[in-house]
């Protein structure tokens, strides 16, 4: 593994905040990274908790941005959504859904348990072909900007450590245990096969 860059996927629910933050940092650190959401729709906070802005995965960040500017520029500037979208559109045009991606990864990092379950379920529901393993690790991150940033750094550190192992599969268990102790949060971890 060390000679070959890890193929990493970062997955959250809407492919907006947590996964994009990590995508941003990881790509800056030279990882081969993609980001995804697992939800059926892309949801962004709306004027009230029960009135989110809902888009489908085909909508580009640009379109969402224009839409929100039109709706209430001040509100979405203030809560950082516009800023976030701006960042996102610099990274890629639109959110992607994990379940629709057929690319193979070495490592999938999810940002909450529900997403982890969805990812593992999806991977297990696929027909196995190559038996190429993929490790899925869940790092719980609250869905707000600050936690996203902190979480992204944690993910990045984790990826770097994994990247630097001589034999990832042999050492990942121990590595995760260390990270658990260090960050004092539990990581769910499993392996699936393509």
């Amino acid at each position, binding site marked *: 593994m060390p*000679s070959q860059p890890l193929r990493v996927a970062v997955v959250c629910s809407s492919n907006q905040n947590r996964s994009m933050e990590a995508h941003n940092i990881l790509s800056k650190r030279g990882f081969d990274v993609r980001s995804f959401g697992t939800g059926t729709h892309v949801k962004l906070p709306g004027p009230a908790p029960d009135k989110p802005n809902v888009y489908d995965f085909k909508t580009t960040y640009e379109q969402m941005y224009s839409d929100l500017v039109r709706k209430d520029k001040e509100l979405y500037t203030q809560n950082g959504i516009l800023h976030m979208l701006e960042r996102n559109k610099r990274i890629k045009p639109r959110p992607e859904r994990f379940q629709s991606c057929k690319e193979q990864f070495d490592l999938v990092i999810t940002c909450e348990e529900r997403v982890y379950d969805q990812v593992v379920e999806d991977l297990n529901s696929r027909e196995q072909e190559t038996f190429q393993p993929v490790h899925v690790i869940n790092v719980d991150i609250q869905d707000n900007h600050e936690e996203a940033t902190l979480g992204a750094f944690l993910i990045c550190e984790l990826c770097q450590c994994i990247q630097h192992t001589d034999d990832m599969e042999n050492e990942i268990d121990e590595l995760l245990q260390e990270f658990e102790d260090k960050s004092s949060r539990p990581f769910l*971890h*499993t392996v699936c096969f393509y």
Partner: protein
Amino acid sequence: MASGSGERQHASVASQFFTGAEDAAIDMTTSEKVVDLLNQAALMSTDDKLTALKQVQELIINKDPSLLDNFLDEMIAFQTDKSIEVRKFVIGFIEEACKRDNELLLKLIANLNMLLKDESVNVVKKAILTLTQLYKVALQWLVRSKSVSEMQEACWDMVTHMKEEVLALLDSDNDGVRTHAIKFTESLIITLSPRTPDSDIPKKQEGDISLDRLPKDHSYIRYDVLSEEGKSALEKLLKFMVHPAISSINLTTALGSLATLARQRPMFMSEVVQAYETLHANLPPTLAKSQVSSVRKNLKLHLVSVLRHPSSMDFHSQISTLLLDLGMAQGDIARCVPAAAQPRKRPRHEPYSEGKRIKIEPTLIEDDEDKEEPAPVVVPKPSSTTGTQSAIDLTAEFLLPLLTSENVANLVLISMVYLPEAMPASFQATYTPVESAGTDAQIKHLARLMATQMTAAGLGPGEESGSKDPIIIRKVSAVSLGQAISVVGAYKSPTAEETPQAKKLPEPIMPSTQPKAPGSSGRKKVFRLGDVVQPLSDSQLEKLTNMAVKRILQAEKAIARSGMSHVRVKLLARLMTQFEGAMKDDMLHFILEDMRARSDLAFSLLYQEYNQYLSQLPSGSLDSYEHCLFALLSGLQERPEQRDGLFTKLVLEAPLITESALEVIRRYCEDESRVYLGMTTLKELILKRPSRQFQYLHVLLDLSSHEKEKVRSTALTFIKRLYEKDHLREYIEKFALNYMQLLVHPNPPSLLFGVGDDTEVASPWTEETVRQCLYLYLSLLPLNHRLVHELAAVYTEAIADIKRSVLRVIEQPIRGMGMNSPDLLLLVENCPKGAETLVTRCLHILTDKVPPSPDLVERVRDLYHKRVPDVRFLIPVINGLEKKEVIQALPKLIKLNPIVVKEVFNRLLGTQHSKDVLVFWCFKGNGSLLVHLLCSTNLCFGEKNVYTSEVLAVVMQQLMDQNSLPMLFMRTVIQSLTMYPRLGGFVMNILTRLIPKQVWKYPKVWEGFVKCCQRTKPQSYSVLLQLPPAQLASVFERCPEMREPLLQHVRSFTPHQQAHIPSSIIAILEATNRMQEPQPQPESDHAEAVEEREVKP
């Protein structure tokens, strides 16, 4: 098969079409392009090489498969590439190539076999993945072949052999390799088991071969053998899963594999469900908390996927129970059950679903029991799946009536003993309080759980009734013996052993540069440090050590900047004491380069050395420490510039001063430019290291007789200071006296010339050697006067040369003592025999500048009178003696040699005795003493500032007052007159006064009188005229030439004056010639004149 060959057909048609339609040059181009890419790839870096090789692969497999055979060898040659990625690529290529053209298996399978034993686990993993695919391909290929060639047989044998090897990799040390081996096993089981109508078939694997597609009459492939192999593989997988130390990833993988098996081969449903049940009750204790959660999550997921399969109908109750335990809601479980199955299964499902809500107490017990057995042995029955099922059922039925409250309570109590100290993570995660304990359903569940455990352990009536597998019996006996048994890889597959190796196995394509022998890398890569490291040779070791230490040394500044200097210093000190020789010297040299800045290092090193020595007591040697200290000290000395205080600091802070270190200090003291520093340090040592102070003091004392003046005097200064310390005094004195005692030897002892210089016989005492013995003593003398007696004692015994030297050197100290010193007085008083000269010398020194004290005079006088009547004693104190004593002594004194006499005079002069002396001299002037007297008086007259004209006048007056005239009277008068001509008047008066004394009766004096008159004419004329005629005649007899001038003088008188001169005188004046008138009265005139002179001085 059909589809495969069809594809090939199609491809070749396409290529034909392609070739025909376009140009032949394109084919050429493809071939050339491949050649070109391969050539480039050989020289490229890994990434580019991969890109090139991928292009080649695309070209020769997909674009133009006809080229595949041509370039196969070239591609395979890359399997020895040093890059892991390239080797992995080659494996991928083998897979693709074999899939494209099955015949290539014949050639390539051996290469894959080699790669399966690659040293890199990543390559091995890739090889396993490929074998997973190729196993099916190979089997299908063989089955398809109408007649199997020998080559094909060999190829299949090799595949079978590789399969066994991969199965054995379930025991690999590497987690990832095990994971891949599990997946291989899964695939193998699927292939080697029959597809049934209720099997889930993934679309892409529809064409895959499986056991049911094997012809039972195949010439080489044996259906029953493969069927057994499949079952054996499942058995291995199940065994692998219950290993107590299975890693969470392996467990996850195995769970997934089981789920796949259950869905694709529902015939194994029973084993799978049972394995899940066992696992759930026996989660490995090695899992961490989060891993437990992950595994449980997985288990749930797979259970649900199994539950959805229609064939799981019979096991819904067990699966539901498990899912409930895993925290899934009843409703959710129900939703997962296939709609068609629900109504049909309801009745059987019922009894268990009631108990679902209950979290059963026995789970707890089971868990505990599990913990207490380090290796729970769960041996699934490979031979009869139904047998296992019934065994558990039988045992459960057997247990059910036994689970009375009393028995259960006892079980719990017994189990309590085996509870672990801390709650295992797996238990903590699974435990939920038991809500309805004691209900029938719950007891039934408990019975079943216990039955699972017991069956797994090979116990219970169900087990006994089951088929007696020899392995199980062996296990049971082992368990009954209480032994922990490792389940994994316990036995070999018999097929591997019985495979006849008659046929030649396929040979791998060996590139000419092939360096590796197949099988050179072992199956298992167990890391042992000893395997990968080689002992360094001694010289290498030393070189590396040296370099390492040098680096630490050189890192001084960098480390100082980081504030970790103290660590470096400590490290160096520790390290250095471990090594000998050159490295130490290097380090010392390094320290000395900048001692000021590196003193902490120096001290640290020194203390470390000393510590080392202490730790090895009593056998330890000080050599290393001594060497270190010595090198530092002498290094400091060799440095040209003075290092302020560092030397002193080093000496004073060193834990121990060794002999050699002391020697360096001594050298310091002997170095004139550093003598002060050296001695200060030495002094500090003496004062601050009481335990060895005398040793240090000795060095200092030794230096007190050093040949270099500066060293000596500095040493003496320091010793004098130390002499004030009471506790050191005795030692110093003793040393000084011992040294002085050397003087009694006839020749200077070798000691004085340094050790080993044995020249005692040859060399005589010299001034220098004598002084050497006395320096210290003499500097102490003024501090302790009592010592003077020792000197006297030595003096008396010493030879003359030494005595002289002694007398020369004692001046300063004796003067320092002063004449009031009681000890000196005592010495004078006692004056040991033979020490007279010494005492005299002392007296002289004492009274040289100042008059003697009465005390001293008293002692000397005493000595002189009572013991040693040597007048020379009196000389120093002579001006302290009474006049009478002086007078008494004088006769003896003037007999001494003139120099002594002169000294005596010097002493007497300037005292109130001076006049007496001269008077005395003149008075005593007679007989044998005359010569001495003459000398003496000459001496007196030599002292003009003492014997002024006035003094002489008084002396003459006193002499006149004597009853009889001293013999030397006139001599004195004449000499006085010669010195002071203005005394003429006074002398005339004297002469006049001598006449009544009838001076002519003293022949000598008379002679002098005449001489005097002769010298003082014409003043003396009036005196002469007063002489009686007879005496006048006597005068003229002596000096006839006087007569005429005197006559002329008388004749020049006035007549009146002439009248006063008696005629007898005139007659004498004119006796021979014509006599002049008698002299009138010249006396009065003269008397006036004398008076006149007396008045004006």
